[in-house]
């Protein structure tokens, strides 16, 4: 395009469209990277264990692990493990989140409760689940419930801490609004405190989800007869590393899935963010 003076002129709209298209290509190549990187990692692993850079006895190549995965999948055992673990994770997660939220809200709203409970939370939090297993067995036996409790125990702490932080971080002006418009304690709780704390609370819940998965092996170490953690632990103890890696990859897969799921849920639950 040339203007009256004969200079080359560019249509600004076209220029920006070109720019935008370039941007889009870049964007897509980034997304591609996200898919490529795990594939690349697996490929590297495959090559390393085939060429002997990785000890094949300890690191069976992904192809072998996938074969094992299909074997386990076809004989149906895998689904038992997966469904049992998912049930325990879900139940443990809920059993940790619900009291975590309730106690967290109470702590956030009432300073004496907060001052009373927080040192206990601080003291109990660093105690590793692994060390609590015997105590859990004594109290809750060896059934499914003890696994659920184990998971719940580790989910509880991040949820409680973030819920308290969430309540304390509610902007003062919103408390003023509630007071000025005469909110009753009940209304205050449900219309201000709970939704106000929700975003930070959900961060804690997201963390709780990660921890629930991290705990499943410890939870299913004892008294279990199935579950992904059981699969990992017994395979490992029987030196069936391919089976162990199937379990690890399953956990990693579910971790990924749950994260995405919770992020999606978060958008639904806090649409105002």
């Amino acid at each position, binding site marked *: 395009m040339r203007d009256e003076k004969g200079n080359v002129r560019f249509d600004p709209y076209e220029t920006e469209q070109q720019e935008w298209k370039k941007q889009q290509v870049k964007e897509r190549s980034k997304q591609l990277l996200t898919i490529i990187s795990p594939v690349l990692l697996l490929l590297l692993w495959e090559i390393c264990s085939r060429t002997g850079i990785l000890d094949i006895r300890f690191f069976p190549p992904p192809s072998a692990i996938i074969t094992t995965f299909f074997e386990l999948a076809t004989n149906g055992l895998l689904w038992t493990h997966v469904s049992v673990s998912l049930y325990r994770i879900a139940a443990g997660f809920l059993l940790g989140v619900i009291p975590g939220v309730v106690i967290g809200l109470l702590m956030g709203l009432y300073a004496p409760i907060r001052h009373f409970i927080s040192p206990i939370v601080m003291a109990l939090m660093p105690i590793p689940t692994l060390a609590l297993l015997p105590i859990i067995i004594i109290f809750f036996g060896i059934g499914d419930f003890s696994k659920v409790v184990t998971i719940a125990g580790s989910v509880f702490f991040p949820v409680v801490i973030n819920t308290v932080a969430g309540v304390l971080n509610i902007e003062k002006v919103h408390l003023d609004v509630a007071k*000025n*418009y005469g909110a*009753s304690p009940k209304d205050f709780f449900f219309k201000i405190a709970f939704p106000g704390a929700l975003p930070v609370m959900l961060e804690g819940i997201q963390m709780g989800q990660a921890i629930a998965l991290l705990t499943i092996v410890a939870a299913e170490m004892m008294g279990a007869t199935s579950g992904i953690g059981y699969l990992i632990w017994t395979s490992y103890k029987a030196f069936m590393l391919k089976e162990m890696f199937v379990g690890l990859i399953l956990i990693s897969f579910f971790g990924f899935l749950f994260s995405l799921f919770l992020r999606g849920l978060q958008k639904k639950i806090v649409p105002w963010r």
Partner: protein
Amino acid sequence: MSNDVKISIEDLTKVFYKKNNSVTAIKNVSLEVEEGEFVCLVGPSGCGKTTLLRILAGLEHPSSGQFTIAADSDFRPLQSMVFQEKGVIPWLTVEENVAFGLNMRHLPKEFIRKQTNNYLKKVGLSNFSKLYPKELSGGMKQRISIARAFANDPEILLMDEPFAALDEQNKFILQEELLSIWSETKKTVLFITHSIDEALLLSDRIILMSAHPGEIVKEIKVPIPRPRTMEQVRANTEMAEQFIAIWNHLQKEVQRSRG
């Protein structure tokens, strides 16, 4: 306009006490506001305007002195406050925000719906009623805050620099809207602002305060008849004089409190 006293403030003092330093925010403030009057409170920053309003709003206790707000009706709340932009509650939709006061009073659903829609229409937010505040501009958020306070139908309205964060053009549009709603409802309003133009445009009476401790030092009746326009305010030479008078007072107070 009747001549009944609506707000009567008597010798109000507020001290913020801390271990090492105590601040007397307001000192011996006495003021009467008539039913239906629009009063602006103007004063240098930190002179205790917000503190006074918060005491009236029940958000702070006075250290000494008292105030009364005359109640016409048992059903009405005594006062409602128009907060700044941030006072809009982000997790409630526009509609829910406007209905907030009514919901807190657990009024009949149908009444709440009608009242809310009515005020949503008045501030031009009917089409945005289901949106969350984050999707709205600053001016629209401020409209929510105003609608919320008016919808609550209180005896008096308290406003703390509701338009401070808006740009000049938006500010004026909202000022006009506020005046139009106010003239329909004839509520008694106590309004804080730093903007002399705003005070001149909106109020029947301007109360000038001194730098801290905040005391009332002067009262100015605004002489222009309503409805007013900004052009009138700017063109009127009497107003220009008033402006400069208030301006000089504030400059002096600011200098004094800095020096």
